[in-house]
C-alpha cells in the first residue's frame, strides 16, 4: 500500500510538472501564407489564351518579435506616466518587430543594478536610464556598458547638437556612452508664491529684468515675517518667532556642490574642476567665487532657517505650498511634482539670479539611456534609443519629467509648445552659451570626502569661503590626479 502511494505521488507530480512546463512553452509563430492571383498565358489547341490562376507562394519565414527591457529611474507620477506612455507608443508602432518592457527602477540603485548584471553575466535590462557625467561615463570606463557608435546613423546623430554629443562621449576612445534624453542645464528656477510677492510689493524677476544675488537676499528679507507680520530688518522683528521664510534653498551635502558649482560655472563659462596644463584641479576664479559664496551664505543673511540644511526636495515643495516659504530654489521638474501634489496651489517661476547683460553659460550634459554590456538585442535596443530622441517622442518623455529635452526641437512639439512656463528656459537657451567638461574618475570621491564637507562648514558659518576655497584647491590637486 505504501509503495502504491509512493508511485501514485511520483506520477501525479510528473503530470503536474509536465502541464506546468507545457503552459510556459512559447508557442510557435504563426506561419502566414499569402494567396496570389496571377495572369497566365497558355496555348490551348494552337491558340493562346490568358487566364487567371491562383498561385500559392512559399510561406515566408516569420520574424520573431523581440522584447527588450527598459529600466527606468523615473520617480514621481508624471515622469512614470510619461515613460509608460512613450513605451506604449513605441510598442504600437513596432508591433510584431520590437516590444519594450518597462521596468521601474530607482535612481539610487543604478550602480548596484548594472554591476550586479556584470557580475552575473547578464540577466538585467538591455537599456538603463542614468546620468551621463560620473554615471554613464564611469560605467563605460568599467566596461559595464556598450559604445553606441556602431549602431548610430547620421539621422540619429543629427537629433542633438555636437556639443551635447560631446558631453556623452568617453574621452579616451571617443565612445558614445548614452543617447540624449534630458539636460541638466539650464534648468534652475526660483519658484515662488505669487501672493507673498504681491503682499510684499515685490516684482518677480524676468529674463529681461533679472535679479542679482543681492536683490534676491533683499527681497527675501521683505518676505521673512514674524508672527506679528514684521519683516526681517524692521524694528520689532522677532527672530525667535518667524512664521514665513523669504527664501528656502536646498543646502544639503549634494546641493552645496551641485548648485554652487552650477552658479559659479554659469558665471565663469568654464568648468570649475578641469585640467590646466594637464593637471586636474579646482580652479575657481574671482567671479565664480563671488557667486558661490553668495549662494552658500544665505543662511547667515537670516532669510532661511538653519533647518534648510538638509531639507529634501519634497519638504521644500511642502514649505512653498503651505506658505512657510515664499521662494524656493528648484529645478524645472519640481513644477509637475508641485502641480500633482498641490493642485490648488498657484505657482510662479522666475530665473535664478544673474547680472544683467551677463552671458548665461551652461554645461552640456544631463541624462541618457545606456545599453548594458550583455544586451542580447543591441540593434533593436539601439532602434528604440534613436526613436525616443525624435522631437515628437522626446517631448512626451521630457515634459513628463519636467526637464529640458536633449533634442531642442522637442520644445516646439506638444506639450511644450503650449506651456508658457517653459518660456524662461527657452530664453536661457537663446541667451546662453554651452560649454563641455571632461571626465575625471575621482570626481565623486573628491566631492564626497573633500568638497561637500568643507562647503557645508561654510554654510554653517564654521569656516570662511576663502579658507575652504584654498583647501579645495590643494586637496583637488592630490585627489583628482591619483593613479587610476
Amino acid at each position, binding site marked *: 500500500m505504501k509503495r502504491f502511494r509512493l508511485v501514485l505521488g511520483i506520477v501525479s507530480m510528473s503530470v503536474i510538472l509536465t502541464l506546468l512546463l507545457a503552459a510556459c512553452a512559447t508557442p510557435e509563430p504563426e506561419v502566414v501564407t499569402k494567396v496570389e492571383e496571377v495572369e497566365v498565358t497558355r496555348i490551348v489547341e494552337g491558340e493562346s489564351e490568358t487566364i487567371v490562376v491562383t498561385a500559392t507562394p512559399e510561406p515566408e519565414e516569420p520574424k520573431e518579435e523581440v522584447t527588450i527591457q527598459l529600466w527606468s529611474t523615473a520617480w514621481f507620477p508624471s515622469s512614470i506616466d510619461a515613460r509608460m506612455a512613450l513605451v506604449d507608443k513605441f510598442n504600437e508602432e513596432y508591433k510584431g518587430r520590437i516590444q519594450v518592457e518597462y521596468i521601474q527602477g530607482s535612481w539610487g540603485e543604478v550602480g548596484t543594478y548594472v554591476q550586479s548584471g556584470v557580475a552575473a553575466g547578464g540577466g538585467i535590462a538591455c537599456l538603463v536610464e542614468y546620468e551621463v557625467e560620473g554615471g554613464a561615463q564611469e560605467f563605460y570606463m568599467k*566596461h559595464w556598458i556598450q559604445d553606441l557608435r556602431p549602431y548610430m546613423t547620421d539621422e540619429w546623430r543629427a537629433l542633438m547638437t555636437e556639443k551635447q554629443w560631446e558631453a556623452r562621449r568617453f574621452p579616451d576612445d571617443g565612445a558614445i556612452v548614452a543617447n540624449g534624453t534630458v539636460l541638466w542645464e539650464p534648468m534652475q528656477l526660483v519658484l515662488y508664491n505669487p501672493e507673498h510677492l504681491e503682499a510684499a510689493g515685490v516684482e518677480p524677476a524676468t529674463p529681461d529684468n533679472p535679479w542679482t544675488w543681492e536683490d534676491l537676499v533683499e527681497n527675501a528679507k521683505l518676505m521673512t515675517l514674524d508672527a506679528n507680520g514684521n519683516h526681517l530688518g524692521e524694528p520689532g522683528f522677532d527672530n525667535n518667532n518667524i512664521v514665513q521664510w523669504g527664501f528656502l534653498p536646498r543646502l*544639503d551635502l549634494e546641493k552645496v556642490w551641485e548648485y554652487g558649482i552650477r552658479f559659479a560655472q554659469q558665471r565663469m563659462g568654464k568648468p570649475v574642476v578641469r585640467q590646466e596644463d594637464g593637471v586636474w584641479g579646482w580652479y575657481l576664479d574671482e567671479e565664480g567665487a563671488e557667486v558661490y559664496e553668495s549662494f552658500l551664505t544665505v543662511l547667515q543673511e537670516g532669510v532661511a532657517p538653519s533647518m534648510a540644511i538638509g531639507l529634501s526636495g519634497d519638504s521644500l515643495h511642502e514649505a512653498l505650498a503651505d506658505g512657510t516659504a515664499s521662494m524656493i530654489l528648484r529645478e524645472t521638474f519640481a513644477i509637475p511634482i508641485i502641480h500633482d501634489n498641490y493642485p490648488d496651489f498657484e505657482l510662479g517661476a522666475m530665473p535664478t539670479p544673474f547680472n544683467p547683460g551677463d552671458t548665461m553659460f551652461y554645461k552640456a550634459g544631463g541624462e541618457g539611456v545606456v545599453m548594458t554590456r550583455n544586451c542580447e538585442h543591441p540593434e533593436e535596443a539601439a532602434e528604440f534609443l534613436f526613436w525616443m530622441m525624435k522631437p515628437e517622442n522626446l517631448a512626451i518623455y521630457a515634459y513628463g519629467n519636467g526637464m529640458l529635452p536633449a533634442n531642442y526641437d522637442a520644445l516646439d512639439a506638444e506639450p511644450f509648445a503650449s506651456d508658457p512656463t517653459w518660456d524662461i528656459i527657452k530664453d536661457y537657451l537663446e541667451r546662453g552659451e554651452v560649454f563641455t567638461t571632461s571626465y575625471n574618475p575621482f570626481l565623486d570621491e573628491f566631492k564626497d570626502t573633500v568638497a561637500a564637507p568643507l562647503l557645508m562648514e561654510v554654510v554653517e558659518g564654521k569656516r570662511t569661503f576663502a579658507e575652504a576655497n584654498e583647501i579645495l584647491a590643494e586637496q583637488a590637486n592630490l585627489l583628482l590626479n591619483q593613479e587610476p
Partner: protein
Amino acid sequence: MKIANRFKVSGKSVFPYVLLLPTVVAIIMFSLYPFLSGIWYSFTDIGWVGDEANFVGLKNYKYILTGDIGAARFFKQALVQSIYWTLTAVAGQFVIGMFSALVLNERFPGRFLFRMALLVPIAIPTVILALTWQWMYDPFYGLINYYLRLFGFLEGPKAWVGQPNSPMWPLIAVAIWRGFPFMTVMLLSGLQGISHELYEAAEVDGANVIGRFRYITLPQMRTIMTIAVMLHILWWWNHFDIIRIVGQSGLEFAYRIATLPILGWFEAFQWSHLARGAAISMMSMLMLIGIMIWNARREIRSVRL
C-alpha cells in the same frame, strides 16, 4: 531507514551528510566564497566589479591607516562613530530588554499579548522598518513632529535626521527599538531558568526586590547576558541599513554619522576603490574578533576560578 541504508560508504551511513550538503553548498557560495574574496581583494588594487586584481601587499591598509585624502580622512572618525553607535545601541537594548524580560517573567492577564507584540519589531524587515522611520522623522510629513506639535512640545517643523549636522541619537533610538525584542527573548529565557527556591530563600533572609535582583538574578544570568550582549555587539557593529536609509539622504556621504561599514561601502562601490573598501571591512572584522577573543579569555578565566 531504508533510504538511509542506501547511502552507505564503507559500511557507514553518509545520509546525514547528504542532507547537510545543500546547506553547506549555500554557505560556501554565499558566505565563505565572498568572505575569502574580500580578504584577497584587500591585498590587491582592484577598483570595481570586473576590474583586474593585482597583488599589492599591505598598500591598502597603509593608505587607510596613514593617508589623509579620500576615505583615509574619515577612517578614525568612522571608527569612533562605530564604537559610539554600537555601545549606545547595545546598552539601550540591554536596559530596555532586561526591563521587558523582568516584566514579562511575571504572571499577569494579557501577558501572552504583550509577548506577541514584542515580536513586531523583529518581524518587520529592516529596510521596511528603516523607510517607515525615515517618514516618521520627516520634518513636514512625519508622525513624530505631528504629535509633538499637537501637544505643544514643538512650534515648527524640525528635521531630526538626514541633515549634514544631524546627531546620531535618533538613529540609535531606531536601533534600540529594533534590537531590544531579541535581547528580551534571550534574557527572558535566562530568567525562566532561575530556580524560584533561590528567591524564596532570599526573601526569608530579608532581601528586598533590589537585593534579590542584585544577588540572585544578575549572577545567575551572567552567562546568558554575556552571550546576548556579545551577539548584539557583533550584529550592531556591522549594521548598515538604519544608518544608510534613515540617516542619509540619497547617495550623500553623511560623514558625521558614517560608521566603518558605511565608509567601506562608499569606498568600495561609490568611489571605485573596491580593494580599499575590502581593507576597511577586514580591519573592522579584526577589531570585532579582538573583542570576541578578549571576552572568551575572560570567561575561561572566570570559569577556572
